């Protein structure tokens, strides 16, 4: 697989470190709900199809990239910088 880092361009996925599901949302800091925290830490949708995930460009610019990838075909749909630009589906 080759991922397109928004800053460095197209690179082999070996340069990146996989950081898991990007759609997991940390509960708000004042949340006391065990269920919300449990869901954030442990529960995953694990889709067969489009998966939004974080890859860190460890051997490059060291920023996180939100990658939309098909888990059945390995097709890369998009690579976005993290933050407000990321098109992560909830």
């Amino acid at each position, binding site marked *: *697989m080759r991922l397109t880092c928004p800053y460095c361009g197209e690179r*082999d*996925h*070996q340069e990146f470190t*996989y950081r*898991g*599901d990007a759609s997991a949302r940390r509960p708000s800091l004042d949340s006391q709900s*065990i*269920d919300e925290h*449990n*869901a954030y*830490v*442990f*529960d*995953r*949708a*694990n*889709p*067969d199809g489009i*998966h939004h*995930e974080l890859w860190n460009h460890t051997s490059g610019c060291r920023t996180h990239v939100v990658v939309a*990838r098909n*888990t*059945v*075909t*390995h097709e890369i749909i998009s690579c976005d910088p993290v933050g407000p630009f990321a098109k992560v589906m909830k």
Partner: protein
Amino acid sequence: MRYSAFAILKNALRGNRDWTPAWRKPEPKSKYDVIIIGGGGHGLSTAFYLASVHGITNVAVIEKGYLGSGNVGRNTTIVRSNYRLTPNSRFYEKSMELWRELSHTLNYNVMFSPRGVLNLAHNPGQMDTMAERGNQMRLMGVRSELLDRDQVARLNPGLDVSGSARFPIEGGLLQPDAGNARHDAVAWGYARGADQLGVDLLEGTEVVDFLKEGDTIVGVEVMRNGERSEIRAEKTGVAVAGNTGRVMKMAGVDHLPIESTVLQAFVSESIKPIIPNVVTFGAGHLYVSQSDKGGLVFGGNIDYYNSYAQRGNLPVWEEVTSELVAMFPNFARLRLLRSWGGVMDMSMDGSPIITTGPLPGMYLNAGWCYGGFKATPASGWCFAHTIANDKAHNLNALFTLERFKDGNPIDELGAGPTPWYH
């Protein structure tokens, strides 16, 4: 038909015309007591123990492809119980107990070969950890031996034990009672055993939806020969390994503490006997043994990212083969015969889930990471108990879905909720 030396002789004299298929190809009934989704090792062994231990024979095993077409036929066939944490030790030692008798239990040669599993250590710190693990194993009644470098060299003459090796070997931990089994034979043996006790094995039958009454699962809707039909059951067990996410979504369970990834395995061309046991590399992750046909069977880490593809990427090939050559330099010129991938259900703590629920009428067997093959007998044995009694056996009482939320994960590696590291 009972298999024996006498049966071979008798059939040979009659020109081998009287052999019958190992199991029937029945048409599905409209209702069963228990449905097991997934005709792999765990599903078939569950059906076998439901019938043989609990007397529940009105059972159907529903399989999308052919029996044993998933991970039970894709693994590197290693059977061991060298664990550190008590729940895992007890569970996998139960599996070893069943493995030792399995060929007799099933009247089918699963070629269980307790040839020993050797984990290598490459520095004093690792030797300390191995001594600790070996002691933990002994406390649980599992034999273990801590070996120094000379003992390792005597056991595996092909190993590079010199000080100039890339990762010089200090010693290792041996579980002498661990070993290998013939993986396809395990699936076929359990299938034949279950079939003889009256279980219906429904191949080419895909579950496309669950039947629900309120929240309760009351059966499944299947596609078979291009036709949709309903099969009802009081109890529905799910044992579909890497496809757990897919199947549970149909039941409306869209989040689980499981992620699917791909694990690759490799076989080399056949050579004369050189590895008498199973050897694992301690400075990376590699396990290798030699099949009875002479090919080296080996594998390493999963392809870290989420995947439902039964194929992986090349960087893992490079890593795995370089580790093999670092251990055994004389394998450098061997050619690979083939490689393949299987989809692993990686749990959040690296330990399995065998439980009632998560919905009424449903039972879940999942989260095997990439150690499901050795668990096949105990997994089926415990899952059958759980289904028959609506309650977990002591051996799987801690393998729940709730353990994460309750703060009781069984994290053998201490890696935390990062399924791609387990």
